[in-house]
């Protein structure tokens, strides 16, 4: 009897192994169409949205050697489909792809300019609701269509989507001229009543071979794109939001030659103040950096010259911040989140202001205080000119 019982127990253990093969809707690795990038465009009527999904070709990724090799070197395949809404269009892609799309590894969402101007909320809901998609993807707005951006083979990376992530990352670490926006930040700004969403703006440059380039910052009003910040205005935005990690500022020396200054550290803060019926925003920016390059023959290592450079640098930063504020006032889009800051500090007054913020925002006063430091001068103290 005891051995029978033991046998039955062992048998049950073996039967349990059958259930280990996975859950109800298991999907094996070789059955996944891994999406790396998504493009959203506005097609001709009667369709609402054209979706581009960039799918990895695993065999091409694994192959050694760069592009070229043998035959078609593309390591990706872009599926395009049109439809009324994003979710349905993605499902509809099974008509072309051999597997259901797999989103967790998606890196970027690119929105065409015409779609962005039309309003993006209705197209982004899927990416916030679906269990597979993640909020850590980067958001871009493309001049032209997102489809052609995603279809431009980069020189160094194998996948256009990965290339965009790397370019954005390098850009925000080295020059900080455009704010890097993840879907979670974009969502937070979409939810806010007053703060306007922003997203990096990319386009194709280069004459023979197109290259994907980040050229500015798209500004949204509500969920519709209304304007564009250029690179220096974009840096102005980054100074205020404390997003500048490192950058290069060109200033004039006292002899009127160009000196390039590298920023190593920067801190940006702002606080609102209500005086009577006026709203004043005080922006404080602390910056420190080194001399990176000089073009003139003068000796920069004198104390008076350093003082001059500091002031010049402050002026440049101040002008960039003011330019960004001027642009945002023109667009009536509060990209800095000044409104929310007022709401945090003056909750009672804010209740009346919140709905009228569009009219109030262009009238607010802004004071920019910049404090800069020049720390190092590099390996040489004087340029290589005869004394």
């Amino acid at each position, binding site marked *: 009897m005891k051995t029978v019982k033991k046998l039955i127990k062992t048998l049950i253990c073996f039967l349990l192994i059958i259930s280990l093969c996975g*859950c*109800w*809707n298991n999907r094996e690795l070789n059955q996944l169409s891994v999406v790396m990038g998504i493009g959203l465009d506005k097609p001709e009527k009667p369709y609402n949205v054209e979706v581009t999904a960039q799918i990895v070709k695993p065999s091409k990724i694994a192959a050694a050697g760069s592009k070229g090799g043998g035959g078609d070197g593309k390591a990706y395949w872009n599926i395009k489909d049109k439809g009324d809404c994003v979710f349905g269009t993605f499902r509809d892609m099974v008509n072309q792809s051999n597997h259901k799309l797999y989103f*967790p590894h998606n890196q970027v969402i690119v929105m065409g300019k015409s779609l962005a101007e039309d309003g993006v909320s209705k197209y982004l809901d899927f990416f916030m609701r679906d*269990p597979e998609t*993640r*909020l*850590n993807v980067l958001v871009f707005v493309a001049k032209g269509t997102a489809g052609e951006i995603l279809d431009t083979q980069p020189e160094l990376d194998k996948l256009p989507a990965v290339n965009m992530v790397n370019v954005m990352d390098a850009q925000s670490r080295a020059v900080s001229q455009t704010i890097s926006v993840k879907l*979670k930040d974009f*969502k*937070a700004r979409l*939810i*806010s009543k007053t703060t306007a969403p922003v997203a990096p703006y990319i386009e194709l440059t280069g004459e023979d071979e197109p290259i994907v380039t980040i050229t500015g910052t798209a500004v949204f009003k509500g969920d519709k794109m209304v304007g564009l910040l250029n690179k220096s205005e974009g840096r102005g935005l980054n100074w205020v939001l404390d997003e500048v990690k490192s950058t290069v500022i060109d200033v004039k020396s006292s002899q009127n030659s160009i000196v390039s200054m590298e920023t190593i550290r920067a801190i940006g803060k702002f606080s609102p103040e209500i005086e009577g019926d006026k709203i004043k925003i005080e922006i404080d920016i602390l910056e420190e950096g080194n001399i990176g390059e000089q073009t003139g023959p003068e000796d920069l290592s004198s104390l008076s010259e350093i003082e001059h450079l500091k002031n010049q640098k402050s002026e440049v930063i101040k002008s960039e911040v003011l330019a960004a504020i001027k642009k945002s006032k023109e667009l009536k889009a509060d990209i800095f989140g000044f409104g929310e*800051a007022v*709401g*945090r*500090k003056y*909750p009672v007054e*804010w209740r009346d202001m919140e709905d009228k913020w569009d009219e109030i925002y262009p009238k607010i006063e802004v004071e920019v205080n910049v404090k800069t430091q020049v720390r190092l001068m590099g390996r040489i103290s004087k340029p290589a000119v005869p004394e």
Partner: protein
Amino acid sequence: MKLEKGVVSNTQLIFLIMSFMQSMIMTVGFNYPLTKQDTWIAALAAFGLTLLMVLVYTSIAKKFAGLNLVQINDEVFGVYFGKVITALYIWFFFQLIIHYLYFFNSFWITYIMPETPRFAFLAMAVFICAFSIRSGIEVVSRCYVLLYAAVLVMVIGVTLLLIKDANPSNLLPILQSTPKDFIQSTHIFLTIAFCDIVVFLMIFPYTADNQNLKKPVLIAVCFSALFLLMVIFREILVGGARIYSSNTPNFALSREIDIAVILTRLDILVALNLFITVIMKITIFFYATSLSIAQTLKLKSYQPLLIPLGALCVTIAINLYPSDMEQFYAGQFIWPFNAGLMEIVIPIITLIVIAIRKLPKKGELSK
């Protein structure tokens, strides 16, 4: 005759209560739509009220040391009316099982296994609960020390990984919610997160030192409240406004962990830990339900009840709500009132009746 022969030491009782209360981090999602960034104040307010309720529960338990809730009801309200109250409690504990099962299963099929039928998941979960309490409360309380540590490590780990994204200004402006919303949010915390420790009136008689229950219970509740506050602060500071519309903010945030692209996608570990918290909660309710039924029907053991009770739980939990939206509405606006009756009103009435009837009468408890 005692139904439960195991003995829980008072240290184990602390861990038992703390692991029982850990699943409160899952239900904070009910509070955010109401009080937003003031949720932590509501949690503190509810914690203050909970301390009072803990005194109520422990003084009831102290008056009738060695008797469980069913026996206490019989003593306090008489044999017949006491049975009515007991029936209400059995129904209440049973409801808690199926609500937690449905609630957690909804989360699970939203994120992890979208197309798995509810039955497959619920059957497994109930099986685990039934299996663990078959060996009695002593075994359960011993292994919960380990499970508690696992969940604690997870929650603290996730908090540390997210701390770099914290934005203190998300806490402002403070105290902006309307009094009505604030009271409702406190009410939800009080009834859903804290005061279901009323179920421990079924377990107190099996502790080693059931004369001095106040200290271990208060310690456990205080630690749990700290734990809850840590999670709420993390969600408000890191998530801010965008997290208040999330069904499970706790899990939604853990999906966003991204340390240098390498340490990312930890969500499955977090989901498993959340599963542990809910299983720990359901197990206690399951134990209380089966034990109180066995006590009421004067059975020799509660073990034969586990399988039919489990089957009932699974079948009812599958179709508990037609949709998740109704469940969310019920959690916010209906359940707190239902639970408030059983967790707050009846214990206070019990205490008043004890005072009026001058219970326990001398000599009665010695038998």
